Structures are given as structure tokens and as C-alpha cells.
């Protein structure tokens, strides 16, 4: 058991180390997680305003933070503290904001569950129906229908 845990921890570390890629990748990644604050409503690295002041200031800050070796989370929190929560392109997994992420998948899961239950119920009800006795005329009618609907 302990060995298994150790292997697991090793994997975890490996994954985390892989996550801490080179500065350029991280810059690109984080630059897509914060918004440009000039009011253009675009993600920072996609802001295409001529000489946008927010773009140059924010990207400089980001570069400085990355060269300091700050973690992703520290950078994002620092941005949030400086510019307010709207600077993050998507809400972080904190307090109320976590609801934003949970609701859609939760609702989908609930919907699927409800549908499955509903279909099962319908099916049981359909199976319980008795088969009525048919007269010969009725069977003749069926025969006629079959002829008319053959390919």
C-alpha cells in the first residue's frame, strides 16, 4: 500500500513538474487567462488595439512576475488584487465562483439521470398493458394494411 502511495506521489510530482513549462509557454498560457483592462473586452494577449496602454502594462507585469518565478496561482491572485476580479477571464475556484463551474455539468448529469429514470418508468408501464382479443375482420384489415405498406 505504501509503495503504491509512493508511486502515486511520484507521478503527481512528475505531472506538476511537467506543468511548470518554460517561461514563454507560461506567459502565453497566463496571458490567455487574464483580460485586457482597456475596455475592449478581449483576452489580454488577443487585444489588438494600436498602442493599447493596458496591454503593455499588464504584459510587462506578467513577464516580471514570471521571471521572479511566481506560481500561476500567485500571478493570478496578484492580478486580481490589483485590477479587481473582472481581470480574470474566468472565475477562480473560490467561494461562490465555484458555482459557475459546477452548475452546467451538474445539471446535465441530473438531466441524464432523470431521463433514464423516466424512460425506465414509461417502459414498465408500457409492458403492463394487456393484449386485447382481435376479431377476424380486424385481422383482415391488418392484412390489407400490410399489403398497402409493403415496399
Amino acid at each position, binding site marked *: 500500500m505504501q509503495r503504491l502511495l509512493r508511486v502515486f506521489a511520484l507521478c503527481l510530482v512528475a505531472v506538476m513538474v511537467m506543468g511548470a513549462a518554460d517561461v514563454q509557454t507560461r506567459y502565453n498560457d497566463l496571458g490567455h487567462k487574464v483580460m485586457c483592462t482597456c475596455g475592449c473586452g478581449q483576452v489580454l494577449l488577443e487585444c489588438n488595439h494600436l498602442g493599447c496602454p493596458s496591454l503593455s502594462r499588464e504584459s510587462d507585469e506578467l513577464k516580471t512576475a514570471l521571471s521572479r518565478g511566481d506560481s500561476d496561482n500567485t500571478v493570478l491572485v496578484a492580478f486580481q488584487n490589483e485590477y479587481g476580479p473582472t481581470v480574470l477571464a474566468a472565475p477562480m475556484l473560490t467561494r461562490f465562483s465555484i458555482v459557475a463551474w459546477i452548475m452546467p455539468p451538474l445539471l446535465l448529469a441530473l438531466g441524464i439521470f432523470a431521463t433514464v429514470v423516466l424512460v425506465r418508468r414509461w417502459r414498465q408501464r408500457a409492458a403492463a398493458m394487456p393484449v386485447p382479443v382481435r376479431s377476424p375482420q380486424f385481422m383482415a*384489415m391488418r392484412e390489407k394494411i400490410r399489403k*398497402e405498406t409493403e415496399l
Partner: protein
Amino acid sequence: MIVVACGLLLLVLLVYVFYPERHVEAQRQKTRLEYLHERKDVLYENLRDLNFEYRAGKFVQDDYAAQQADLENEAAEVMAEIELLEAQPTR
């Protein structure tokens, strides 16, 4: 000029709206018979579809037979009622 244009528009449209029409389309409720014919068409179409899909290999024999029976029963019920209604003298 503008007043004339406005007046003309008003006049033409009012005449169009309130011009007494001799033949007015009646708004009648759909009869049971018409409804049954619609049902029959749909059921026939479903049966043809079922046949076609069976030929195309989307059903195994048992499934096909069961569903064909279901649909045929339903259609036969509808047809029986149609015959009954058509046999009655029209009021």
C-alpha cells in the same frame, strides 16, 4: 405633398381592409374523420419506414415483427373507426 401621400396611404389601406367581401372563408373545426385520415397517413408512413429500415438491415427479425404488429394494430383501429364513420349518413 406629404399630406397627400399620407392620406392616400390611409385611404387605400382602409378601403382594402373594410371592403365588403362576398365570399368569406369559413372557420370550421377539423372533423374526427379528417383527424383519423391524418393519423392513418402518419401510421402508414411509419410502417413504410419500418419496412424500409428492416430491409436496410437496421432491425433483427423479432424486433421488426413486434413493431410491425404494434403499428398495424394501431392503424387497423384507426381504419375501423374511419369505416364506421364513413358508413354513417352525413348529417
